[in-house]
């Protein structure tokens, strides 16, 4: 068969992408392209007018997503995307604000903001691309780097344990928590579209290959090979215990995916002159076993 140039004059995502900024800066085999495409598709699927969408990013490879999306987009400082987004959302509640950033930006330098935005249940969607390392700076240890993994700053193997991100997000009070990989584009897009439509602090973790920074030193092969690894080793289990979701990334380890949490909590409203209308009853202790009370009385 003769090689043939394929010319595509238009694409259904053209209105959502800044085509004058493409091609993007990401490495061959990087998962950020499909992750961004899933988000762009989800914006269209969500039914929310594109002009109401705002994307806020922090710093890093994933931080560059905001610059490629043709919505009002803000590429802020390292770790501060969530509080910047909080200011936008609270000052104009009509906006649909999504924070699209990386694991290091959101959970290391920006971890405190994740904690408090989720606690308040600010109406934001946070998409966290987890590539297990700091890619932009050339493959250093991040907060999700698996135990014993090699990076340029853990040449003898990572002595830290990784954060279990969905477990943390759920514990902090996120009303929707999901994890997918960039191989699972249908499920990922659906999860993001759901998160965009759901009120409150919604969170989607996206596992993504970083063949240059993380794949190479950890024998995961190129981008395609890591995608094969995702296909081979993934298990979809929405009911998986949240504390079992830690990621190891060793050849025979399991990647648990799914939409783990979907619940209701009162959405953050800025303080008015009247006391808040309702409080979150789901967090108040109620003994499952009525005998607990009796024991306590003794």
């Amino acid at each position, binding site marked *: 068969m003769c090689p043939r140039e394929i010319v595509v004059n238009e694409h259904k995502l053209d209105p959502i992408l800044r085509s004058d900024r493409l091609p993007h800066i990401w490495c061959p085999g990087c998962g950020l392209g499909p992750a961004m495409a899933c988000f762009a598709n989800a914006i269209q699927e969500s039914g929310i007018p594109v002009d109401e969408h705002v994307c806020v990013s922090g710093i890093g490879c994933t931080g560059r997503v*905001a610059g490629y999306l043709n919505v009002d987009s*803000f590429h802020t400082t390292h770790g501060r995307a969530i509080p*910047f987004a909080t*200011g936008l959302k609270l000052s104009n509640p009509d906006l649909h604000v999504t924070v699209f950033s990386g694991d290091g930006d959101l959970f290391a330098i920006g971890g405190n903001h994740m904690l408090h935005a989720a606690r308040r249940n600010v109406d934001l969607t946070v998409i966290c691309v987890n590539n297990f390392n700091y890619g932009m700076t050339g493959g250093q240890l991040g907060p999700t780097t698996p135990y014993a993994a090699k990076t340029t700053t853990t040449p003898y193997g990572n002595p830290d344990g990784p954060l279990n991100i969905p477990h943390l997000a759920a514990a902090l009070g996120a009303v929707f928590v999901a994890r997918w990989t960039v191989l699972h584009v249908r499920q990922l897009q659906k999860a993001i579209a759901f998160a965009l439509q759901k009120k409150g602090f919604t969170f989607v973790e996206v596992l993504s290959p970083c063949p240059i920074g993380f794949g190479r030193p950890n024998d995961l092969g190129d981008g395609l090979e890591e995608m094969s690894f995702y296909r081979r080793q993934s298990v979809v289990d929405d009911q998986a215990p949240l504390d079992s979701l830690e990621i190891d990334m060793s050849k025979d380890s399991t990647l648990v995916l799914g939409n783990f949490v979907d619940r209701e909590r009162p959405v953050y409203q800025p303080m008015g002159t009247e006391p808040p209308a309702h409080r979150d009853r789901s967090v108040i202790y109620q003994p499952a076993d009525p005998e607990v009370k009796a024991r306590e009385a003794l």
Partner: protein
Amino acid sequence: MSENEEDRHVLTGRHFMNGDTACAEGAMAAGCSFFGGYPITPSTEIAERLARRLPEVGGVYIQMEDELASIASVLGASWTGARSMTATSGPGFSLMQENIGLGAITETPCVIVNVQRGGPSTGLPTLVSQADMMQARWGSHGDYPAVAYCPASCQEMFELTVLAFNTADLLRTPVLVMADEAIGHMTERVVIPDKSAIEHVARKRPHASAMDGQLPYESDGSMVPPMPRAGRGYRIHVTGLTHDERGYPATDAATHDKLVRRLAGKLTHFAPEIIKVEEVQLEDAEVVLVAYGSTSRSARHALTMLREEGLPVGMLRLITAWPFPGDRIAQLAERGCQFVVPELNLGQMALEVERNAHQSITRLNHAGGITMSPEQIAEAVRETMSCAREKSWSMSIS
């Protein structure tokens, strides 16, 4: 908006008010509708006042998790079209520096109040100092325009906060109110005028509903591009990276030099409009006190004492520390004036005075913790007058 709600923005009348409270009322009068903050002595009363006041007018008060988050939320809110602010003191001001730079490069107007206390580090949480003045100018990395007002009374806490919002919108950049603990915590008369008497500089907006061919960071010759609002269909991209006139990242030397020169150039361009000083008996002065904030109150008292002794002393009070009135200092130096600069730091604004005067000056310094007494300042002036002119004097108060 009902007339009643309107009234709650501006508390017209005579008040006996704490400086921090007056600052908060200045923000209300200026139409501030978003405060993101974190409590820190001696600025906390600003947050407390706005927590009560903003909900009365449908504004947003949010206590963020730290000062990093506070300033980030303030920048975000500004892009919705809101006038937004935060208030802090030294340690919090240090934490805010990175995003003050983001505000400068993305041209995001907002107001940051620093009620100065003794530093470095935790220093003197409850006691006065003026040691963040150079940080106000150079605190964030890179070259950027810095505007800083120095209130010297509760009345000025009100007035200069209003002015800070106007200057922020005029230049499209973060503006600082560099108060100090003595001013923040003193209580005196504050007169709040009618709403109609409060000046309001409108933020420059794009003409059309879409950018209409106009590039978001194209400065149309005025140094300040019009600022779109998020959610209005402009599809803007705003980045802390060096960017071209489309707002797109362009990290090359030529674009960087052009952008940074325009940003920094705002200060030179608008300096004649922004610089504010109060001149006290400078006409025949041979010695000029250059003072600001709480120290200028002691300097004013010293000046009266010295005039009674028949000594030709005047005062140049800095209302804007940045931009600095260097030309006025140069004029006075040319006339043969000597300068005495009392300040509650080890000589910060004194550097600017010396640099512009091209001569040695007398510095009167204390690291902070106590306001300077008029007698100490008067003595520094007397010594300056009796000493050989080529000698530089640096005095410490114990």
